C-alpha cells in the first residue's frame, strides 16, 4: 500500500513537473513551476516568483531617467523624488521607465503593479567601494551621486567629468543585481541549512526556500522568461523597445510571449544585466566572437530550477546541491564576464573619445559634443568597473589596478582629475597624469580584462587592429636570403 502511494505521488509530481514545463513549451521557458511545498494550503498553482526583482529593475530604470532631469541648480524636490525610487518603499510610485513606446505597449504603469514595498538601497552592496574616495558603502555612494545628480544640468557635471545617470545605472547593475544574485542567492542561500527546500521560503509561501532563492537570482538577471526561444538580438531589441528593430513592432512581437498585445514587465521584458549579455552575443557593439553569455546563463538558471523542482519539496541531497552549485558557478562566471566585457568595451570608447577630443582640440574645433561623449563613456566605464568589484570574490590586485587606472574621475582636457572628495562633499582636483598616459591606461584596462576574465567579444579593442594587421602581413621572410 505504502509503495503504491509513493509510486502514485511520484507519478503525479512527474506529471506536474513536465506539465509545468510543458505548459510553456518543451521546457525552454522559465515559466510556471509546480507548487512543491508540503502542506501548502493557498490557492497558487505556480511556485515561480521573482516580481520583487523586476520591481527593482523598474526602480533602477526609473531612477536612471530621473538622474538626467537636473536643471543645473540645487533641486530638492528632484532629489527627494530620486531618493523615493532608491531608498524608500513609498506606495504609488509611477513607472518612469520602461514605459509604452509606439507599438511597444507596456502592461504596468506603477511600480506597485509589479510588487509593492520594494527599494534598491536595502539591496545595495554593503562593502566599501575602493574605487571612490573615502571608503563609502555602495548605498552611501549612490546617495552621494543622487545628491550631485539633482544639482547637475541633465545629470552631467562637465567640470569634473561625471555623467550621473550612467554612473548610477551601471553601478547599480552590479551593486544590486549582480551582487544580490551571485553573492547572496547563488552563494550563501545555496548552503545546506540556508533556506532549505523542505520548508516554505517564509510561512505560508507557495514556494520552498531553494525555489524562491533561485527565482530571485533569476529575476535579478532581468531576462524574459522565454529567452531561450529568442535570439540574443531579439532580447536586445526588446530592451530597446523597437528603436533598434527593422520594424518597431518587431520588439513587441519578440517580447509578447502570451500574445496578449502588451509587454508584461514581470516576465516578458529585458532589463540591464541581460541586455548587456544579449548585446555582446548579438554582436551589437561590434563582433561577438562567438560569445553566448545570454543563453548560457539562462539555460543554467532553467536547468537549476528544474533540478530544484524535481526534488519535489524535499531537502536537496548533497549531490543535488552540488549540481545546483555547478549551475550557479556557470551563472556567476558568465555574468562576471559580461561586466568585464562591458568594462573592456567602454575603456575602448573612452580611448576613442580621447583621440577624437585631442584631434578636435589641436584643430581648434568645438569639443562640446566629443567631451559629452567622453564623459558619458567614462561614466559607463567607471560604473561597470565598480560593478565588477561587487561580486562574491574580492578581486584583490585586479581591483586595485583597475581603480588606479580608471581613477576617481576622467582626466579632463585641461589635464585636471578628481583626486578626492572633501568633508563637504566637494570634489578636489589636481593635475592628473599626461593625456597619452591616460589613453594607455585604457589599453591596459582592456589587457587586464583579457588576462583576468578571458573576455572574448572584445568590442572596441584598442590594439585589436594590430593583431589583424600583423596576421595580414604574414610571417617575416624568416630564412629567405639574398
Amino acid at each position: 500500500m505504502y509503495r503504491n502511494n509513493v509510486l502514485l505521488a511520484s507519478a503525479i509530481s512527474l506529471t506536474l513537473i513536465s506539465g509545468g514545463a510543458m505548459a510553456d513549451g518543451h521546457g525552454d521557458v522559465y515559466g510556471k513551476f509546480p507548487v512543491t511545498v508540503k502542506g501548502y494550503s493557498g490557492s497558487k498553482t505556480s511556485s515561480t516568483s521573482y516580481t520583487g526583482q523586476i520591481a527593482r529593475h523598474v526602480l533602477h530604470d526609473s531612477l536612471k531617467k530621473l538622474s538626467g532631469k537636473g536643471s543645473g541648480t540645487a533641486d530638492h524636490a528632484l532629489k527627494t523624488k530620486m531618493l523615493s525610487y532608491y531608498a524608500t518603499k513609498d506606495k504609488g510610485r509611477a513607472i518612469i521607465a520602461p514605459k509604452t513606446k509606439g507599438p511597444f505597449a507596456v502592461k504596468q504603469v506603477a511600480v506597485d503593479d509589479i510588487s509593492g514595498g520594494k527599494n534598491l538601497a536595502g539591496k545595495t552592496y554593503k562593502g566599501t567601494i575602493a574605487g571612490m574616495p573615502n571608503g563609502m558603502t555602495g548605498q552611501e555612494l549612490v546617495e552621494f551621486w543622487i545628491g550631485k545628480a539633482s544639482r547637475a544640468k541633465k545629470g552631467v557635471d562637465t567640470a569634473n567629468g561625471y555623467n550621473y545617470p550612467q554612473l548610477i545605472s551601471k553601478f547599480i547593475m552590479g551593486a544590486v543585481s549582480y551582487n544580490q544574485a551571485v553573492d547572496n542567492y547563488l552563494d550563501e542561500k545555496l548552503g545546506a541549512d540556508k533556506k532549505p527546500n523542505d520548508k516554505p521560503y517564509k510561512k505560508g509561501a507557495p514556494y520552498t526556500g531553494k525555489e524562491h532563492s533561485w527565482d530571485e537570482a533569476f529575476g535579478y538577471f532581468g531576462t524574459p522568461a522565454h529567452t531561450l526561444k529568442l535570439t540574443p538580438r531579439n532580447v536586445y531589441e526588446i530592451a530597446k523597445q523597437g528603436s533598434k528593430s527593422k520594424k518597431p513592432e518587431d520588439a513587441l512581437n519578440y517580447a509578447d510571449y502570451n500574445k496578449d498585445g502588451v509587454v508584461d514587465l514581470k516576465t516578458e521584458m529585458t532589463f540591464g544585466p541581460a541586455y548587456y549579455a544579449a548585446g555582446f552575443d548579438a554582436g551589437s557593439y561590434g563582433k561577438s566572437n562567438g560569445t553566448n553569455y545570454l543563453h548560457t546563463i539562462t539555460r543554467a538558471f532553467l536547468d537549476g530550477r528544474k533540478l530544484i523542482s524535481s526534488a519535489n519539496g524535499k531537502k536537496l541531497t548533497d549531490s543535488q546541491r552540488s549540481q545546483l552549485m555547478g549551475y550557479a558557478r556557470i551563472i556567476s562566471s558568465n555574468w562576471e564576464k559580461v561586466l568585464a566585457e562591458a568594462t573592456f568595451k567602454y575603456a575602448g570608447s573612452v580611448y576613442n573619445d580621447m583621440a577624437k577630443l585631442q584631434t578636435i582640440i589641436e584643430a581648434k574645433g568645438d569639443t562640446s559634443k566629443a567631451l559629452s561623449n567622453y564623459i558619458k563613456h567614462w561614466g559607463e566605464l567607471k560604473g561597470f568597473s565598480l560593478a565588477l568589484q561587487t561580486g562574491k570574490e574580492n578581486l584583490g590586485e585586479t581591483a586595485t589596478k583597475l581603480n588606479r587606472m580608471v581613477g576617481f574621475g576622467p582626466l579632463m582636457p585641461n589635464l585636471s582629475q578628481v583626486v578626492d572628495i572633501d568633508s563637504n562633499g566637494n570634489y578636489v582636483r589636481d593635475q592628473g597624469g599626461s593625456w597619452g598616459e591616460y589613453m594607455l591606461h585604457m589599453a591596459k584596462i582592456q589587457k587586464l580584462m583579457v588576462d583576468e576574465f578571458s573576455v572574448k567579444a572584445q568590442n572596441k579593442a584598442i590594439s585589436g587592429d594590430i593583431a589583424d594587421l600583423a596576421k595580414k602581413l604574414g610571417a617575416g621572410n624568416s630564412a629567405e636570403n639574398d
Partner: protein
Amino acid sequence: MDAISSAYFSELAAPFLNPNKRLFWGYLGASLIIALSVQLILSRTGIMRAISNVFSRRIWFSLSARADYKIILINQALMMGIGPRLISKLAVATLIFESLHIWFDGRTIFLSSCPPWVISGLFTVSVFFLDDISKYLVHRALHRWPILWAFHKVHHTAETLTPLTIYRTHPVEAVVFSLRSVFVQALAIGGFLFFFGSRVELMTVIGANIILFAFNILGSNLRHSHVRISYGRLLEHIFISPAQHQIHHSAAHEHHDKNFGVVLAIWDWLGGTLTIAEKEQVIRYGVKNSRSKNHTIKSIYLQPFVDSASSLIDLYMRIFLLMRSIKYIPVFRFFAVLVGTVTVTLGISIRDSSSGELNIYSHRQPFLINPFIEAYTNDTGTKINIIYAKKGLAQRLKAEGPLSPADVVLTVDIARLYTYVDKDLLAEVNSKILYDNVPEHLRDPQNRWFAFSKRARVIAVSRRVPKLLEPSRYEDLADAKWRGKVCSRPGSHVYNRALVASMINALGQQRAEAWAEGVFNNLARRPQGNDRAQVKAVAEGVCDIAIINNYYYGKLKYSKEPEHRRWASEVRLVFPNQDGRGAHVNISGGGIAKYSKNKIEAQRFLEFLTSERAQELYAKVNYEYPVNRRVPLSQELASWGNFSEDRLPIARLAEVASEAQRIIDRVGW
C-alpha cells in the same frame, strides 16, 4: 610524434603554397616562363636546349645544390624550435603603438577626412620601402661586420644557384632575418595604426603585398639562377636585376660587397655599392677559397661559430688596446672607491639600528627626505620607516583608521595638507618649539599641521626679454602684451590653484577671474607638463615667460644634465609684487597622524625638521626657503635675490581653493 612530423612536412611545403614567399609555385612558374622566353626569344635557343639549360643536372644536382637541400631540411627542424621563442611581432607592434602615446602625449588621428584607400596605399608602399631598405642595411652589415659575415658566408659558398639557394642560410642568420622582419613590420603596424587608426589595410593580391607580388611574379627567382637577365643601365639604378644579384654572388674580388639590395637598387646607389650588369659577363659564383669542404654539413653549421668567435676575440683585443690608450685605470679606481663607500655606508646603517621607531607616510620623494632622516637617525638612533606614494596616502590613512601604523605625514602644498585635516587624520600638536620655529601664518590655526619649508611661485623670464620690459607683478601676466608668450602647467595643479586663491584674496573673486582669463588667453600653448617643462619651453623659444616654483630653477641650474643647465641659463627669476603684498609662497609641511602610537617621538621629529640644522638642509637639498626665521638664507638662495613674501595666512588659501577651482574651470586653464 606523428603530429610533429606532420607539422614538419607541412611547414616544409608551406613556402611553395604561400604567396608571401618567393618560392610560391606561381612565382616559380612565372620565373620558368621568363627563363624559357629569354632563351627562346633573345638567345634564339631551341626549346629543348632551353629546357635542358634551365633544368641542367650540373646545376640542380651539383655538390652545392645538394648542400642547399640538406640545409633546408635541417633548418626547418631547427626553426620549428627557435621560431616560437623569438619575440613576437604583435608584442613589438603593441609596444611601439603604446610608446607613441607617451612620445606624442596622446594621439591625434591624421588625415581623418582622407579615404581609406589612400591610407592603405600609403601603408602598403611604406611597408615595402621599410622592408626593402632594412633588408639592404642588414645585408650590408652581414657583409661588412666580420662577426656576421662568418654566418652569411654560408649563403655565399653556393657555387651553383637555384631558386632554392634562397634558403641556404645559417640558422643564426635566419634569426637575424626574423628579428629584422619583426621590427620592421611592427614599426609599420604600430606607427600607422597610431597615426591613421583602423583605416589601415594592406593592399594585397592573392594575400601578398601588391608590390612584392609584382616583384615576385616578374621573375624574382631568377636572381638565384644561371639565367642572366639585365634591365639595362638606367633601370638598374632603380631596380636590382637578376644579373646584378648574380654579380653579388660573384667570387671575383671586384664584385665583393656590391648590390646588397633586394628589389630597389637606389639604396646601393645611395650607399655607393651599386654595380651595373655588364654585357656577356661570365661569373663564377662562390667565395674566394672555394672548397668542397664548404658544402659539408659540419662546415656549414659549425665553422661560422669558429670564425665568428675569432672575429669577436679580435674585437675585444681592439677594445682592450683602446681602453689602455685612454687610461681606463682611474675609472676602475673610481668604481672601487664607490663600491667601498657603499659597503661602508651600509655597514654603518646596519650598526646604527636603534630602539625607537617612527613610521612616516610621505608624498615627498625619498631623495628629498632621506638627508633629514639620516641626520635624525644619527642624532637619536630612531629607526625610521618610510612609505612613499605620489598619491593615495590620505585615502589609505583613512581606510586604516585607528589601526594605522603611521606616525608622521609629510607632504607638499597647503591643499594636500588641508586634505588631511579635512578628513580628520591629524592630531593637534602642543609644542612650544614648533610654535617658536614656525611663524603663525605658516601653520594650522589649530596646530595640526606645520610648514617646514617655503617655496615661492615666481616668474621665469627669458633672457631674450629686456629687463625693462619684464613683468614685475602677477597681475602683469594677464597683460595683453604677453599674448601667446606665457607658459604654464594646468591651472588645476595645486600650485596654480593656490596662486589663484592668493589672487582671490588680493583682488577679490571678480578681478581674480578676469586675471586668470587674461593669463589663459596669453598662453603660448595648451597647459601641460610640470614646472621644469615650462623653463624648457622658455629656453626653446616657445614662450617668453613662465610661472614656476623657485626650486625648479635651482634643480635645473645644478642639474647633472648639461641640457638642463642650459635651460636654466636662458632664464632669470622675477619675484613678483615686491612693491606690494609680496610674492605668493606655498609650503611643504606635515603633521602627526591622529592614531599614531608614538606621538612623543613623532613630535620630536617635527621639531627636528624645524630646527636650525634641518632648516639649512631644505635649501641644500631642494633650494627651498626655511620657515625658521633664525635660519639665514643659503648663499645660493640669497644670490637669486632676497624677496618679500605675501604673509597671508597660508590656511586661507585652502579655504578659497574651491572658488579658485571654479574660476580655473570657467576660464579653461
